[in-house]
């Protein structure tokens, strides 16, 4: 169309400007800052790879990385796993589909901070819901947030929060499978668990891949659950809270930026590895 060039520019420009200022420029500035030693915003000195060398000898960062990986493991096994099982089950029933879809999505709309506060009330040693429950059965109170349990205790709300999201994605993918596949399977006498493992899951493999990638990158962003429930104490420090502490609490912008860049690279590598491992021919129908 005539004069389209003008419109292309006009329509793209506002979004491009705001993203350039608040996303791309800051990202490259972080990269730049990661090579500096800083004191506040005004005093900085180029130190080359110094911050990155420090990353590798930083034991706290190593611990945070391992903790993040542990949470990621729970998320992949339980969050994605439960979502898949629930989707298979809901897909197989006739009545009440809409009810379960609506109800399973509840936690997703609640803020992580509110959920964290809820779990603070669950885990409280003296008066929390869980220890109240134990007391009713005359079982001794448990320290839910001590060194040994805290990370698992935090993983529970993390997992619970987003099961519904992946559940809906799986259910949608399953509803797109043409019914001839199932009819053919029926004629062959394939049903039940076999139908699920041999037909449904291979057919939605590309969606499972998307979900796994989302789950991995999502876990790297975990912040509020840890921050609100334990502030990263008792062996629950994850990369998100560690970066926040370094950059914002200690105001160590240079090293904080290096941690952030490390998180980006870590995420990209993990996502690539996961996609490699799950490599399969995409099925189109």
């Amino acid at each position, binding site marked *: 169309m005539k004069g*389209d*060039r003008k*419109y*292309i520019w006009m329509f793209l420009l*506002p*979004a491009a400007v*705001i993203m350039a*200022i*608040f*996303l*791309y420029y800051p*990202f490259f*500035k972080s990269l730049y800052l990661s090579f500096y030693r800083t004191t506040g*915003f005004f005093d900085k000195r180029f130190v080359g790879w110094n911050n990155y060398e420090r990353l590798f000898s930083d034991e706290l960062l190593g611990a945070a990385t391992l903790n993040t990986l542990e949470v990621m493991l729970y998320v992949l096994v339980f969050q994605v796993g*439960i979502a898949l099982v*629930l989707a298979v*089950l809901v897909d*197989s*029933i006739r009545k009440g589909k809409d*009810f*379960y*879809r*609506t*109800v*399973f*999505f*509840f*936690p997703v*709309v*609640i*803020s*992580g*901070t509110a959920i964290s*506060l809820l779990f*603070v*009330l669950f885990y409280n040693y003296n*008066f929390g*819901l869980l220890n109240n429950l134990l007391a009713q059965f005359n079982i001794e109170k448990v320290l839910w947030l001590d060194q040994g349990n805290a990370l698992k205790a935090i993983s529970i709300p993390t997992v*619970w929060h987003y099961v*519904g999201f992946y559940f*809906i994605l799986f259910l*949608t993918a399953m*509803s797109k499978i043409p019914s001839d596949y199932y009819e053919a399977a029926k004629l062959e006498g394939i049903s*039940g668990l076999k139908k699920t493992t041999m037909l449904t899951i291979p057919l939605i493999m590309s969606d499972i891949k*998307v979900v796994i990638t989302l789950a991995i*990158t999502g876990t*790297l*962003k975990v912040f*509020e659950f840890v*921050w*609100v429930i334990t502030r990263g104490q008792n062996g629950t420090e994850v990369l*998100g809270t560690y970066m*926040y502490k370094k*950059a*914002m609490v200690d105001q160590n*912008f240079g090293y904080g*930026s290096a941690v*952030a860049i490390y998180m980006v690279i870590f*995420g*990209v590598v993990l996502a690539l590895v996961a996609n490699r491992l799950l490599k399969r021919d995409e099925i189109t129908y």
Partner: protein
Amino acid sequence: MEPTIVAEQQKQQVIHKKRWKASSVIIYIILTAWSLTTIYPLFWIVNNSFKVSRDVMNDSFSIAWNPVWTNYENAFERINIGRSYMNSLIMSFSTVFLVLLLGGLAAYVLSRFQFQGKRTIYSVLYATLLIPAFATVVPVYELLIQTSLVNTYWGLILPQTAGNLTFAILVIAGYMSTIPKELEEAAFMDGCNRWQMFYRIFVPISRPVFASASIFVFLWSYNDLFSALIFVNKENVRPIVALLNEISSQYGTDFGLMATAVSLTVIPVFLVYLMISKYIQKGLTEGAVKG
């Protein structure tokens, strides 16, 4: 011979039916069990918000037949939760509005125009999904201080808009590219220019995707603690999630107040969700969130 075969078949059918029933009972039990984990905590927290702290601590399971409103009075008077509400709503609605407007325009161009560099723009957008807020927060903070936007509404609106635009552009463009070309040509014949075509034809047709994108952008903005803690953590501009974080450290022993604060944060979003849950499901159903 024949009757036996029929009887055999019937028997098989009966067995089949029975087995089907048993397995579907188990399925319903599992599904209902999971739905209890999503419903009961909400009930528990709202129920406890109507009790004084002592009762929350000692007797959190009983139902509050005689609701106490002290916690709600405290929430509005002592910690001024109303103020944070306003802040949250102003900032989140502005973010949604900006994201839809700017994202809609960009998505329109990307889905309906042929031009050089389009593929590059798409690659850049996909790469942008890999940049978390952690990797931009320090320079953005610096920028906001320099422009004295820190601790103002714009201090949260602008970064959040930038952060959510990628998602919105990709989702809306995906939807718009499915709109038939004939419609565009007809509108052109009628003398519409590109701008009119955008807001008279493409926006109304794409309403479902705008609806679902707006819901997700709203949720992500309203629930974003990390940015709120850094960019708008002063009492007069603080959104509700930052206040919740404050409560957990300041009033960590006042269980009733905590239950009330959580209830107040959750319930409005929750009611809106129940009203529009169809849109959310629909937005996701259209393959929207596929990164």
